[in-house]
């Protein structure tokens, strides 16, 4: 099939970017979305043009590298998929596809479709861990964890840090990202001890890095490729409030 692409091109972090149109013929429905971009890049390189730069690595929806805003939605029109899992079967002959990078003050664009999500690591540094040193762990089965709690913790722990929640949020808030980690660790007895402090520290870092605040629109949940629930944001709020006026 033949498609029209409108792709954001930007030379560097400080350059002005703009959309460039490409007509791509000979696209197969068998392709994944990123294979379609590989195909475009092959043609660009062979024609002596610069290929479109985009991030990708595992290509199976688990590393969180790929991050494209496609036709107005993070990771494109399909639900519960990352960009690399999106297939061209979701598009039709003659479609126009608009591709942009994640846009947020805290995710500056480095080049073309690559946004810098380093801020997520910074938030994690603020408290996204259990303070246990190697070797000081007790026998793994010494603390049973109720199955429901463990399952719920897992539901939060599946976050791949892709940033779709920020990209989807009208306020560029990272609440779902923070909530996933806080909730995951708060639900486990191992992580309980530091829970309030963790929520406080990670949220403070989130605010400091220029992410917006949460208005509970639910767009993050709807766009999260891993289906992480808003309920985790409620738990994050709870952990934050429980900490009270202490710290």
């Amino acid at each position, binding site marked *: 099939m033949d498609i029209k692409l*409108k792709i954001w091109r930007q030379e560097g972090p400080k350059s002005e970017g703009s*959309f460039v149109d490409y007509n791509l013929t000979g696209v197969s429905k068998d392709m994944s979305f990123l294979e379609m971009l590989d195909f475009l890049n092959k043609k660009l390189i062979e024609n002596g043009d610069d290929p479109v730069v985009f991030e990708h690595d595992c290509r199976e929806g688990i590393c969180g590298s790929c991050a494209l*805003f496609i*036709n*107005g*939605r993070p990771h494109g029109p399909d639900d519960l998929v990352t960009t690399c899992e999106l297939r061209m079967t979701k598009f039709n002959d003659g479609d126009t596809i*608009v591709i*942009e990078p994640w*846009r*947020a*003050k*805290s995710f500056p*664009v480095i080049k073309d479709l690559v946004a810098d999500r380093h801020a997520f690591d910074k938030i994690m540094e603020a408290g996204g861990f259990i303070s246990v040193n190697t070797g000081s762990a007790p026998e793994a089965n010494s603390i049973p964890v109720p199955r429901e709690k463990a399952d719920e913790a897992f539901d939060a722990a599946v976050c791949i840090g892709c940033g779709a929640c920020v990209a*989807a949020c*009208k*306020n*560029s*808030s990272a609440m779902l990202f923070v909530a996933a980690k806080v909730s995951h660790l708060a639900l486990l007895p191992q992580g309980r001890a530091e829970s309030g402090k963790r929520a*406080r520290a990670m*949220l*403070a870092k*989130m*605010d400091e890095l*220029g*992410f*917006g*605040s*949460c*208005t*509970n*629109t*639910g*767009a993050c949940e*709807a*766009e999260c490729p891993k289906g992480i*629930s*808003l*309920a985790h*944001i*409620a*738990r*994050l*709020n*709870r*952990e*934050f*409030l429980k900490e*009270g*006026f202490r*710290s």
Partner: protein
Amino acid sequence: MSSFLNASVGRKFLVSISGLFLITFLAVHLAVNLFLLAGQEAYNMAAHFMATNPAIKIMEPALALGFLLHIVVSAYLTVTNQGTRPQKYSMVDQRKTSSWPSRNMFVLGLLILIFLALHLSNFWYKMKFGGVAYIEYDGVQVQDAYTLVTGKFVIWWYALIYVAGAVFLRLHLLHGFQSAFQTLGLSNQLWYKRLTVIGTVYALIIAAGFAIIPVWFLAGTFLN
């Protein structure tokens, strides 16, 4: 203390608490207003009770404070959020991922604020600072608020403004109700659904309740 209020979630807490307070106030307000449908004396006595009850008198400044807090903190957060995406997307498709009211709470809030100003100057100001005739029931002098209110509602565009106000309120509550609980952490996957349903019903009752009054009196003028 400062780390609590410096955090966006801490500020959201203020919006949420004040919001729930205002939500409760709406129920009381509507209950009194519905006496309008029961006739002049019933309404005037209810209004008199409210105006003279010491508990209500104490709550009045608290209510004002609640409004102020809700408006000021929301405005502050909204303004802050404006700066979080300097380069906008060229195309955004949120039809399936979030509701229109949830994305436009500030706009809805502003519309309600405008309505509120009109509403206060029309009724509250006049009742508070005079200009309303008195009427006597069983030897008690009370303000004839009934005549003041119904006198306005028979004007069609006045009634229309009040119906519009109720619609804005409904949209605001549609998101605000469940959002307030979410911010307080009083939600989970099950309660999220329940609160959404309760919020939807509550918003409908409040909006329909407030809207039915001007419609009732306006309709009355046509029937007479």
